[in-house]
């Protein structure tokens, strides 16, 4: 996996990959977005087909919701929406690793980062399944409700604190299994903070049945609040309200 060992004839490409060892993560994320968009349907095309086959029923709204929370779908969503937010941490973990370990360090960080998100996805999946079987009518109101929750969460000090904790750095062992473990642990720590920061956003997104528009807007919000230099929680809350409105309109149209 060592980029430096690849026979790249063009110095420009070699320098680009040396300077940006995280490039493959973005390609992975782009591929995840392609999977979401590929069939050309605004409700995620391919993923519901996979989920339909798995669950064996076709899509009324509750069915869509259940499909949307399948493990595969959730994983694709994490890769597409959340991995790009890690650009700073990916650069830190690669810069703080020995040259030949850089991509390996990134991989362990991503593994640690994804753990809690996947667990969260499974819990959501189970929750939506329970609702679908016991009180399907509730599902109709879930999206606007969770967007409201997300707006309120956006305004709390805990949200800001957890967002800042997403930027944390930590010492990493240079070699051996402890280097791998430290990268994994670093990823887990960031993942925990990011889960805390974005749980409401992702919950609202899932509650729309993963409408592509909702995914795009929520992704833009989560990327922006990670990278803008002075994020305004009020601004993001207003953006979220818009996202919720658009997603609801698209879903009901």
């Amino acid at each position, binding site marked *: 996996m060592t980029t*430096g060992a690849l026979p790249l004839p063009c110095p420009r490409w070699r*320098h680009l990959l*040396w*300077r940006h060892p995280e490039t493959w993560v973005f390609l992975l994320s782009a591929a995840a977005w392609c999977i979401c968009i590929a069939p050309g349907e605004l409700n995620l095309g391919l993923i519901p087909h996979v989920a339909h086959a798995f669950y064996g029923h076709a899509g009324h709204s509750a069915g869509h919701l259940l499909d949307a929370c399948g493990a595969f779908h959730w994983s694709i969503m994490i890769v597409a929406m959340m991995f790009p937010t890690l650009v700073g941490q990916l*650069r830190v973990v*690669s*810069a*703080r*690793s*020995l*040259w*030949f370990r850089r991509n390996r360090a990134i991989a362990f960080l991503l593994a640690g980062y994804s753990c809690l998100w996947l667990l969260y996805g499974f819990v959501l999946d189970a929750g939506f399944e329970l609702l679908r079987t016991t009180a399907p009518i509730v599902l109709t109101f879930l999206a606007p409700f969770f967007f409201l929750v997300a707006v309120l969460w956006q305004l709390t*000090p805990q949200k*800001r*604190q957890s967002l*800042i*904790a997403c*930027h*944390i*750095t*930590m*010492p*990493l*062992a*240079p*070699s*051996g299994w*402890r280097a791998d473990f430290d990268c994994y642990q670093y990823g887990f720590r960031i993942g925990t903070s990011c889960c805390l920061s974005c749980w409401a956003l992702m919950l609202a997104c899932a509650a729309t049945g993963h409408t592509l528009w909702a995914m795009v807007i929520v992704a833009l919000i989560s990327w922006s609040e990670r*990278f*803008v*230099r*002075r*994020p305004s929680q009020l601004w993001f809350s207003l953006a979220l309200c818009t996202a919720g409105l658009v997603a609801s309109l698209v879903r009901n149209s």
Partner: protein
Amino acid sequence: MRTRKDVWKLPAADQTLLWYARAIAIMKTRLVADPTSWRYQAAIHDYDPSDDPLAVPGDVLPSASEQATFWARCQHGSWFFLPWHRGYLFYFEQMLLKIIQQQGGPSDWALPYWNYSDLSNPKARCLPPAFWNPTLPDETPNPLLVTQRASGANTGKALGSPAGAENSTCLRKTVFVNSSTGGGAGFGGGSTGFSHGGSVPGACESVPHNTMHGAVGGPTGWMSAFNTAGLDPVFWVHHANIDRLWEVWMKRDPGNTNPTVAAWLSSIAFNFHDESGAAVTLTVNQVLDTTQPVLDYVYEDVSDPLAPAPPVPGVVVSAARSAMEAQRIPEMVGATDTREGITLGSAPQSVQFALHAPSGPAARELTPAAPRQVHLNLENITATRRPIESYMVYVNLPDGANPDNHPELLAGLIPRFGIVEASRRTREHAGDGVGYSFDISHIVSLLETLKAWDPDRLRVTFVPERTEAERAEPQPATLPIKVGRVSLYFA
């Protein structure tokens, strides 16, 4: 245009510092909620309600939203460090000027600067007596006197160490922005956003800024903490000197340039109050030229204190150099593997770690025009509370050797200033501490010449920094700090 003058070179009858003292005395009479008050101005740098030495019962603080907008805004460990402090100083100076004019003082009064790096002045590292005389000439208490300072500060002793007061390391930097991947500090700091925990300060911020903060404040004094630093009048003349160094750096070499990206120039509007207490904003591009409005001031001396480097044939100089430096890709070749970090106390301590042969750009991209650079990085330095020591960091110091006898092995300093604040989880920081990056290329070259460089192993020694005054008298017990990791980079 007003001229900021060297505080040690003011003529005997000069009244710059007397007017400074009188204006501060008036600011101190104002309530904390008044933006033109002494306490409000200090709180702009940082404010901790649990540690406000001037708090009095019945204090009415500004509203929470006003505090969130204007207080605890200082930019450290960031490329906004220099421009933010320039704006901060300018509006503070305007408030003083307004008071001085109202009191019949000079209309061209300007904040003086304290040039502690001046090698031609044997008293450069001492505070001028105006800052520690108990009274003013009219026998009223001296508003410039603060008792919460380091040992010897208020008796005219030299503060800190020569290494902590020198400015040649930062002035020799050839780029403004730090490497984003561990390859060393630039003059001005790293490209950061709203959260800059764990980041490496720029070279000017590290030394002499942070070091002289700690030297004046000592283990427990006001200058050693973000939230109390602005309460010491020395703070403002210290920062005037830091601001001056930015001008010196810009003028000493045409190749030294500020960043030109919008993210730095205009992405953030800093919030301040003008001399009348009205809210104002400043962006970086408004403070780049001190001779233009809004600022309209110059420094008495911005000459280059360093001998100009002789041109080396084949070495790129001037503007192209910045681009070349930016092309360097640092490669980590070794780091400590200490699980719990390295705990530093009041005794010297050493760590060793294995070095690996470089296999990336450091092995393949070396050219005569871009000789190898070696950076010693200290990552995630944390401390829970004060008092703490400042440390001197040596490379390959022999066992049992007296560090004072080996200045050639001194890599840099870990100043106490800012460590505790950067270790707290707050609304601005993740709490992962600070980092420092020292360019030790010259030390490695020296050791290689002396056949004393071991390419497989590096030894780093931390020694508490003590002034002569501090060595002469018992010091309060200090608490440990922790260095998360020490690493070595080739670039």
